[in-house]
């Protein structure tokens, strides 16, 4: 089983992308289980994904990359033991650093999962504000990614897109960058194809 971690700031589009990806997995006959982490007490995203027919485990009221990392490990172990999916998909909270999530699971690499891929989403319409208010977190999410995704193409101005492209290039040179909008499903296809290939490789 491989591990796919979706990272990115609050409201960057993680849940929306995961819903589309889940459909792609179904189309390709792959099985997946989903862990959704929300920093607030009440889980919203888990129910949104659950409405799409997915089996979702919610971890709420804390961040799995640090304060409740042990909950992540326990939940992942339970899922694997019970379902043996092809892929374990984790939606990190919007304030999580992907490095911390992987660190929490590192001691189970090789037995619980074989390989991992980190996908970080970036909302170009708010990136400059994020860099001003939450610089360390934003840098950690970008630098910790194997794949970067600029979302909300339909909402961003040309200047905002230019800033996003330059920022990602500066912080994570050489990392694959996709540009998508949920309003145009076609824009998601290459990215979803690569992620499905990763899921099938386990």
């Amino acid at each position, binding site marked *: 089983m491989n591990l796919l971690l979706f990272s990115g*700031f*609050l*409201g960057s589009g993680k849940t929306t992308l995961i819903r589309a990806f889940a459909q792609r997995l179904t189309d390709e006959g792959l099985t997946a289980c989903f862990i959704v982490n*929300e*920093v*607030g*007490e*009440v889980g*919203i*995203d888990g*129910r*949104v994904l659950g*409405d799409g027919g997915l089996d979702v*485990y*919610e*971890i*709420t*009221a*804390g*961040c*799995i*990359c*640090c*304060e*409740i990392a042990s*909950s*992540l490990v*326990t*939940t992942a172990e*339970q899922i694997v033991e019970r379902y043996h999916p092809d892929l374990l998909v984790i939606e990190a909270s*919007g*304030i*999580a*650093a992907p*490095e*911390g999530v992987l*660190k929490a699971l590192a001691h189970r690499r090789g037995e619980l999962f074989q390989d991992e891929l980190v996908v970080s989403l970036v*909302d170009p*319409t*708010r990136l400059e*504000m*994020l860099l001003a*208010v*939450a610089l*360390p*977190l934003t*840098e*950690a999410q970008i*630098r*910790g990614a194997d794949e970067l995704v600029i979302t*909300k193409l339909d*909402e961003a101005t040309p200047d905002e897109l230019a800033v996003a492209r330059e920022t990602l290039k500066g912080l994570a040179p050489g990392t694959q960058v996709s540009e998508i909008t949920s309003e145009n499903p076609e824009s998601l296809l290459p990215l979803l194809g690569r992620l499905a290939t990763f899921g099938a490789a386990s």
Partner: protein
Amino acid sequence: MTGRELIAPYSVRLRLVPPQGEFAEPHEDICALLEELGRRTESAGASLIGHLKCYVESPAGENFHGSLTSLRSGARCRGERAQGAASLTVDLTALVYGLSGDEVEAVTLATLRQMQEQGHFEWELNHASTLEPEAGCQPSGAGHDHDHGQEGHHHHAHARDREHGHDHGGGHADHRDEA
């Protein structure tokens, strides 16, 4: 670390009742709620709206979700329309930088009162909680010394849970705790 770089997750469960029998367009009412809440958080000094989001259910089991990440983009609702619902149960989470939990709560209550005055709905607040302010996680993995998470599908009370049967707009006191 200054206050503007901290976020205090605030969650609340609401029951909304339409002024006249049923909700004609629940998506519109929820979007209006999120956008007014967004405006008020910015007016109150929020340095950044992280995410205002909610999950909404009707008594008939229809559900949808609402989301706002910036006032420029506005709020969006997706899911079933729930037109004609006699009430709506709303789980709302506000993740806002630069305001304390008490400030977010005050803004939320002021927003609800305004929505009622404008004839959108009457409301009752059944359960609310605020978590400790934090800045998000650092690359080193260091950051928090508290542990109050909930794993799996289990929900329990923690941190600063509040009950608000005394503070509602519609006169329907309803204490409810998900512990």
